[in-house]
């Protein structure tokens, strides 16, 4: 991959609040769910950016914002330098050709009353300029072949396929318009382990063959590490830490990342004894009423008064700045440190 390539997507200060209303006839706003609350990052050409976080952290909302299924409350998403969040009509439709989505649930993401040929061919009906009418059927067959399905099954219905095969159909639909960016929201989490690997490998092959950039949203840290060039860790609507996979997985400096990584069970019984688990207390707070300052402070063992008062910026921590070491990546913590390093505050257990 080319981690230093030009940015395809530039996300700046993205905010999405869902208003909470009360009243039957006269609705008044009583608050807001801050699903995404100030997220900025770049997606570079040909790279895979993994977005990890637990349920309710806003990663799915982020994905829907990126493909323009939702309008942000504030902020910009620039595709090739142009802010796409204010587009509508023809211009929006043109942008949609280039940013496509693969959905999580292979059982609800395909219309049960359409044949596979109609499902994968629908992009060409919506964008007739993408393929002349006579060639569409042939293109659908080619797409089926590319994602590893039998082109003869073009007239079948989704329920005649297994979960993994359905996900391949969803991927073929996403590929039909030859987009530059594919946002995949938990594309393998509904699949069995052995089938998961097939789909992950397929996504990787397609990326190389079609020069795609992926935003890969998932809660499974192992899968994200496997497929991603860079990883963004999200917590309660904000990014906690962003870096290359080695930086995040081997040199995490944000306490949340460290806790998250330590909680993942590793398929190696010998690691049982070696592992130091950081058990977090309690659950994620409600995004309708997030904590002041650092969002993670209510579950953080390092939290101090400063954390409640100041929102930690997402920057390279001062102590690592200019070191060029693997810990020198952006991390939104006032007390960013590698686990076990001196100055790590209290004990990590």
């Amino acid at each position, binding site marked *: 991959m080319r981690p230093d390539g030009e940015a395809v997507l530039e996300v700046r200060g993205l905010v999405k609040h869902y208003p909470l209303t009360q009243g039957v006839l006269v609705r008044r706003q009583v608050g807001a769910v801050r699903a995404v609350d100030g997220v900025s990052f770049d997606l570079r050409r040909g790279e895979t950016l993994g977005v990890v976080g637990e349920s309710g952290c806003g990663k799915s909302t982020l994905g829907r914002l990126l493909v323009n299924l939702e309008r942000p409350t504030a902020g910009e998403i620039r595709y090739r330098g142009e802010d796409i969040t204010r587009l509508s009509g023809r211009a929006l439709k043109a942008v949609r050709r280039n940013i496509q989505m693969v959905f999580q649930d292979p059982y609800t*993401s395909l219309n049960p009353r359409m044949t596979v040929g109609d499902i994968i061919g629908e992009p060409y009906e919506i964008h007739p300029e993408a393929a002349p009418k006579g060639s569409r059927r042939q293109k659908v067959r080619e797409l089926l072949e590319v994602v590893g399905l039998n082109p003869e099954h073009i*007239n079948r219905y989704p329920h005649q396929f297994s979960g993994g095969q359905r996900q391949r159909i969803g991927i073929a639909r996403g590929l039909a318009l030859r987009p530059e960016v594919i946002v995949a929201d938990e594309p393998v989490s509904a699949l069995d382990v052995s089938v998961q690997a097939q789909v992950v490998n397929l996504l990787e092959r397609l990326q190389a063959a079609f020069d795609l950039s992926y935003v890969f949203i998932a809660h499974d840290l192992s899968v994200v590490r496997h497929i991603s060039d860079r990883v963004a860790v999200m917590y309660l609507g904000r990014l906690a830490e962003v870096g290359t996979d080695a930086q995040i997985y081997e040199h995490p400096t944000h306490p949340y990342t460290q806790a998250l990584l330590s909680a993942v069970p590793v398929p190696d019984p010998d690691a049982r004894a070696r592992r130091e688990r950081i058990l977090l207390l309690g659950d994620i707070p409600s995004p309708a009423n997030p904590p002041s300052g650092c969002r993670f402070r209510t579950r953080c063992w390092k939290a101090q008064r400063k954390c409640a008062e100041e929102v930690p910026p997402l920057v390279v921590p001062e102590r690592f700045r200019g070191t060029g070491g693997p810990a020198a990546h952006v991390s939104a913590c006032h007390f960013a440190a590698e686990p076990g390093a001196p100055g790590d505050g209290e004990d990590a257990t």
Partner: protein
Amino acid sequence: MPEPTDRIPPEARDAVGSAAGGAAGLATREAESLEGGPVPGTARSAKARSLWTDAWHDLRRNPVFVLSALVIVFLLLIAVWPSLVAGGNPLQCDLAKSQEGPQAGHPFGFDAQGCDVFTRTVHGARASITVGVCATAGAALLGSVLGGLAGYYGGWWDAVLSRLADVFFGIPIILGGLVFLSVVTGRSVWPVVGFIVLLGWPQISRIARGAVVAAKQHDYVQAARALGAGDARLLLRHIAPNAVAPVIVVATIALGTYIALEATLSFIGVGLRPPTVSWGIDISNASTQIRNAPHMLLWPAGALSLTVLAFIMLGDAVRDALDPKLR
């Protein structure tokens, strides 16, 4: 224009070749075990198929559909040309034969006025079926369009429409009938049809709204939106086919209710008036005489039941044909 970049690069095919072999091979085997029956499979695979062509293909082979469709065609025929079957005049009655049983030339017997029940039943089809079919069609169309739009767009449009439906839902039939229909002069069926549509659409609209709200939450609707599909495509291609089943069920059941409702209206004197002949009128007349002349009730009520049954079976068959999972 097909640009060269639109073609799938050969290396991509090579790259997925191994996966393709395994998965596709198995897919064939799995699908074979799934299908089993004479499912239109590879034989017609060359031609593009859609939900509607597949549904029609299924329906033609479904005996329930064929039978109910034949019954309906027959009923429609006698509704249009009653004299094909019963040559007599339904209004030519002989009081002397009041309530007499079946006899030669009069297989169904006579009613209280001495009219031939057979002739009246055949001639009653026109009014009853017109009311039933037109009122159902009208209510289903109005109800599913309004309910569907309310469910799809939500917001204030939904709120206004749902309240409006509640208002119409609350109108008592008898009182409403007396008020609405007594101001209408004339004896045609259309005011009655109009009144029933007015009372009937809220029921359908509630069902349609619920079904659309459920269908629009599915990811496939989001997927189509992400592709750039407009509202019309989303509604017609993705939501409607997945929301139509409960509407069909409710509408076919409502059909019978509407035919009976016409009878009630006629009975209180605001529905159809003589010389119009309808099953509803005959049924309400006969119901007072059930002890001494059951045949008076039997034939028009039987015709009504047959009609309702045929439409319900037709509705079921269409609903099943539109669900690929049941194939």
